[in-house]
């Protein structure tokens, strides 16, 4: 069974077609680059996958379950199986780096000791052990994205959804994030990386799904950014 299955998914806003009859599958442990210019529907596709908005037509399956038939409690469980990182980081500004990561685990009712251990371990993994007590406004863009990545990993998700994670980073920090994503993927977590960064895509040599005008125009196993 595929981990993710988009079946004839379309999305439009006020008559404007954003996604047009998109169908594809992602297997467990797979690394997929979702490429295209800004505004072609990459972010919309990911928003549909993490149940932020419904498709206009079509169905989306995660572990063989139609996600838009799930009850609200089940949607919450679904989101814990996905880790998400965004271009604008989406950190809680009133919490420190440690608290941002710990928060995601506290909600599942783990004891304090376990939360502390797991959160600190993940922040060590992303090389932020010395920034635990800093608030987001005290971190650089690269550090913020690493906190976001640590948070995304706290539930040991099945898949990481990365929406233009390097968009606000310099090339060096950007590559640090991509390397971390590759490392996570090697350990068995699937990754969908939405990006318009040609260099990143062409260096990775992973499966590339190209989107143009809301349609999938290319889906190659070891693809290149050719738009």
């Amino acid at each position: 069974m595929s981990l993710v299955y988009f079946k004839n998914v379309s999305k439009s806003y006020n008559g404007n077609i954003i996604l047009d009859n998109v169908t594809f599958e992602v297997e467990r442990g797979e690394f997929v680059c979702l490429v295209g210019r800004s505004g072609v529907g990459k972010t919309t596709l990911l928003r549909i996958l993490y149940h932020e908005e419904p498709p206009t037509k079509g169905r989306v399956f995660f572990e063989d379950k139609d996600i838009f038939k799930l009850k609200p409690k089940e949607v919450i469980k679904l989101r814990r199986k996905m880790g998400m990182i965004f271009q604008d980081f989406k950190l809680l500004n009133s919490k420190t780096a440690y608290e941002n990561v710990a928060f995601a685990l506290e909600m599942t009712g783990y004891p304090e000791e376990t939360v502390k251990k797991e959160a600190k371990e993940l922040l060590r993994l992303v090389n932020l052990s010395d920034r635990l007590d800093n608030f987001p406004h005290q971190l650089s863009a690269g550090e913020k994205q690493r906190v976001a990545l640590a948070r995304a990993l706290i539930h040991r998700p099945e898949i990481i959804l990365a929406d233009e994670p390097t968009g606000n980073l310099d090339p060096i920090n950007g590559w640090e994030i991509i390397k971390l994503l590759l490392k996570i993927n090697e350990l068995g977590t699937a990754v969908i990386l939405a990006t318009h960064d040609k260099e990143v895509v062409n260096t990775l040599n992973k499966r590339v799904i190209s989107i143009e005008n809301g349609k999938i125009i290319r889906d190659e196993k070891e693809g290149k950014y050719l738009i």
Partner: protein
Amino acid sequence: MFANLKRIFKTAWQGINRNSWLTIACIIMMVISLTLFTSIIIFNYAANYLINYLKEKVDISLYFKTDVPEEDILKIRDELLGREEILSIDYISKEEALKKFEKRTSSNPLIKKALEELGENPLASSLNIKARGTEQYQKIAKDIENAPFKDKLITIDLAENQRVINQIHSLAKAMKWGSFLTMGVLVFISLVIGFNTIRMAIYALHEEIEIMKLVGATFWFIRWPFLLEGALQGFFASLIALAIFIPLIIWLSPKVEMIFAGFNLASYFWANLGFIFLIQTAFGMFLGIVSSFLAINRYLKI
């Protein structure tokens, strides 16, 4: 469960400290609401005191002819005391009446001279009747008009008081409904003000609420710290409102006592401090919790 409670409290406390300006704004609005709320409680008490004070002034006085012996008057008194609607009857002999009159007019030498020239006591013995309720005076007066001892009386002094009795009765009724209505309107206004202030505070954090939803937080996990924050804000607002009231009452009390002799506002306040604080705090926390609940529900949709 204890761990979760600890987390909720910690998160709520962090929220209060780290968003201090928003917290202060919410608390200030609640202090205003609570001050009005407590003012109405105290006003209600003062109004009831005033009404009872006026009610006590009301009575029926039966003035007896000078040739009616004392034992007859006392017999009439005992007869009347048997009636259900009569609370108490005071007998004032003509000698007592003269003594009281002389004491009241001691500063007026003309009256003293007039009494000396009269040579005898012009005042009559009387019975002052107090009813159990002001609405019963009319009936008592009517019954006395038809009583067999009517011819022993000079006058039944109710007519002047009747208007006052009726006014007091209407005033008491109006105040009861007035303060009930005012309290209701105030609670509603307080909820609206508190809700809008907290709603603005939560709006400022709406992005954070969205992020919490994205990482898989349950609605109650998101909600609880906000509700507790609202309750804590209500509690602190109550403390501040009390701190405002104490010096205000101390300052106001002697001024009020000058107008209403015997009415000590400060004594009432100190005697009921615990109750006032409790009810004020309960209202404040209720306001904080309900406002937070209604405000945050807006953002908890999947």
